[in-house]
């Protein structure tokens, strides 16, 4: 199978997957206990007006009509209005998603820089105490719940030492006029450092272990012996030749990690008061705000699916030996 055919087949699978996710989401939200109209309307509201409001949001329509409407919304990327704020869901996503992306990408970059480096070092020092220390560190990182680490960090560095802010993305005194001015300010970096570090701490374990294992495998291959026979330094063998070849699965895993990371920020965003899409998604579910909850879920699921798709294509581009039969 050619690369083009492979890409087309994967595209078809991608569309089917998103359709299946959307259908499951639609069914799931309607099977959930709880009536969204309770949050829409006042307890003491006149029944006629309550009904008018319900009709306005199409909640009285038969399920199949609601389903068709929902699918049209997804195809047209018009996800409706929030029950809660009456804001278009697109706007809600536009408000919160950039905040999450900045946090997650910062954390992932940190996690992969340190994780990959430590992975190489661990493989390089195989059998030594240094390797054991790094492997234990990776396991600890993956084992400690990120919200718990976040609370400990807040308690020590925020409440006790008062060197990091306890909540939010900016200080009250710092009111940037634009998003760009905000993210380029020292105040923003000061707020970013703690949640990004906690997330990076959690995310670092996976690339560390993956890199170590790949390195150990690559180090057994013949070309490593050739490199050494050429008289290259051990550092150059490790970082320039072995690491480069071992990096392939880590890169593709990184692409998938980006997808998961967008949705994996819920707890950290809550602990650190970070106004991201994860925190908003939880609030939307609690409020039975179907449009926002569905919209954010679809976004997060699509991100994972797209990043998987992207990783597959990336893999074929990075490693020409990969075949598609």
């Amino acid at each position, binding site marked *: 199978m050619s690369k083009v055919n492979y890409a087309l087949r994967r595209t078809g699978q991608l569309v089917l997957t998103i359709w299946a996710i959307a259908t499951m989401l639609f069914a799931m939200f309607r099977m959930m*206990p*709880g*009536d969204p109209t*309770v949050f829409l*309307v006042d*307890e*003491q509201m006149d029944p006629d007006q309550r009904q008018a409001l319900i009709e306005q949001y199409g909640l009285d329509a038969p399920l199949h009509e609601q389903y068709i409407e929902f699918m049209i919304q997804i195809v047209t990327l018009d996800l409706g209005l929030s029950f809660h704020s009456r804001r278009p869901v697109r706007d809600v996503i536009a408000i919160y998603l950039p905040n999450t992306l900045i946090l997650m990408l910062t954390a992932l970059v940190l996690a992969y820089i340190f994780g990959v480096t430590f992975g190489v070092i661990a493989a390089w020092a195989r059998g030594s105490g240094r390797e054991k220390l790094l492997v234990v560190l990776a396991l600890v990182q993956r084992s400690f719940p990120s919200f718990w680490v976040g609370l400990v960090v807040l308690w020590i560095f925020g409440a006790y030492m008062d060197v990091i802010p*306890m*909540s939010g993305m900016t200080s009250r005194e710092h009111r940037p006029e634009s998003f760009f001015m905000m993210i380029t300010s020292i105040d923003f970096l000061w707020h970013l450092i703690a949640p990004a570090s906690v997330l990076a701490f959690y995310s670092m374990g996976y690339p560390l272990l993956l890199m170590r294992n790949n390195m150990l495998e690559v180090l057994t291959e013949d070309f490593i012996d050739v490199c050494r026979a050429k008289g290259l330094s051990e550092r150059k063998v490790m970082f320039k030749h072995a690491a480069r070849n071992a990096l392939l699965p880590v890169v593709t895993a990184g692409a998938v990690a980006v997808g998961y990371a967008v949705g994996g920020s819920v707890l950290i965003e809550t602990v650190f*008061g970070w106004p991201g899409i994860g925190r908003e998604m939880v609030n939307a579910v609690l409020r039975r705000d179907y449009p926002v909850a569905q919209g954010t879920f679809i976004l997060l699921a699509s991100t994972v699916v797209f990043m998987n798709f992207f990783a597959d294509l990336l893999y074929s581009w990075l490693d020409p030996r990969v075949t598609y039969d």
Partner: protein
Amino acid sequence: MGNGNTQLDRRSFLKRTSAAAGAASIAATAGCLGGENGGDSDIDYDDEEDAGEPFPEYTFYNNPQDYNPQRHDLINLIAEQWQEVGFDVEVEVLEWATLLSRVSDEYEFDFAAWSQYQSPDPAENVADRWSPEHAEEPGRGNYNQYQNDRVGELIDEQLAAEEMEGRVDAFHEIQDILAEDAPFSPVCYETQLIPYRTDELDGWVEHPAGPDRIHQYANVEPMDQNEDGYLRGFWTEALENLNSWSHEGLSKHLHIQDAIQLRVAQVDADLELDPEHGLAQDIERPDETTIRFEIRDDVEWSDGEPLTPDDVAFTYNTIAEQEPSTYTTVSNYVEGASVDGDWVEVDLSQEIGRAALLLIGYEVYVAAEHVWEGTDPVQDELVEEPVCSGPMEVDYWDVGQGIELETRDDHPIDLAVDGLFWEIIPESSTIWSYTEDGTINYHPFAQPGLELQDGEEEIDDFEVFEAPGDGWTHLNINTTSEGLDEVAVRQALVHALPKEAASEQLFYGYMPVAHSYVAPAFGPLHREHEDLPFTGEGTIAAAASHLQENGYVVTEDGVYYSE
């Protein structure tokens, strides 16, 4: 604390319930209420041969434990008390929205319990809850399905009464009837609490409309430590729309509106017209279906346009024509409005007496005609930059992070504080750290609990301002369920309510026990019922005895109708 077999303090209750962390421990705890103090042994059981049909099983709907742990424990405690008496009561957990829908929309329940508020006046609430016709149509508010024609007459009387005295008489009789018939029972009044830093703020005042309203903003003064002169608080989730036409169900939204928009008529702590803090300087009643407001002429909108009587008339006419959901009650009563010089005349659809000041005047925020003209429906607009009539205006608003209001220098209502700021802080320990270091200086919507009590003890220069509450935690009884349709049975159930222990358990000693439908915050409208023979002392034996006196049979196996 109560007496007899209700000797249970909060800490020991919590210790016991949290130690086992489950229904079994709750049952054990509730059992102690009877057992230790002779609850069961005090019951003088009837002979089983006198027993007729048994009472049916009852379901007590409740939230999941994680929604409100204290209330969860309390409801299990109440259910156990009733089981001690001999009723077969099962507690069933429902997600909150389902619970609310099941009870208030569908009227499908035996028992339920939650909190409710009546701000700023019980007139609207009493009409919704107890009108006999509302019992027949699910969703209208009378979910206890309580039918009493005399209460229906009194509701109309209090609405039409021109003088306070008439309202007082009607309200007292309503409360007497409700207390006697026991379709529900208030457990404890929910005191209004404002925890604040005493080195930064002073001057809190009592008002039945609650904290964080214009009366607080107008009276609270920043102290020496408060360098920016701000009220600095927090909220746990984002505020997402500043539309004054659509604030239903969003208390934080309502409170922000109260700072940035003027109500047509403001009321003081005695529920009289308050010309100092409101838009209406005077009020007239030419007849029972007309109310006239004299509009002050010294207010400008924050965009520089003058606020005129035309704006007020436009607001009422829009309410009458579009019936936005926030103004449901007002639109039921208002036909339309017109301008007569400085006066706005509102035509009403039915006779309304003194309550019109609250139902028609206080309920409504005046809207700017030059901003809203031609908008239909007004309630669907997303408002990010509101044009303000109130003493504060929006200085900064980030949906995800917080809101900051700045006091307007040119506004006729003078505020001592320079502004208000709320940060979104979802994590509670962060709130207390911020309180301790002075980042925030008050808690706008304090929930009483262990954190509040401990915070008060641990943080220097920190106090809790308490004012009478306008609501209560209440137990609801469906008066159409078999057995519960009989007054003596409901009275016995109330008899067995451990209200003292419940108040301690739920609100950590901050809330007094409640006996009346109208909370003490409403002054003369409130009536205590401490002399009732079934005040809710949690006395199991007395509850059983009450049943026996009224012809029911109480055996060791349960409660029965007589042969």
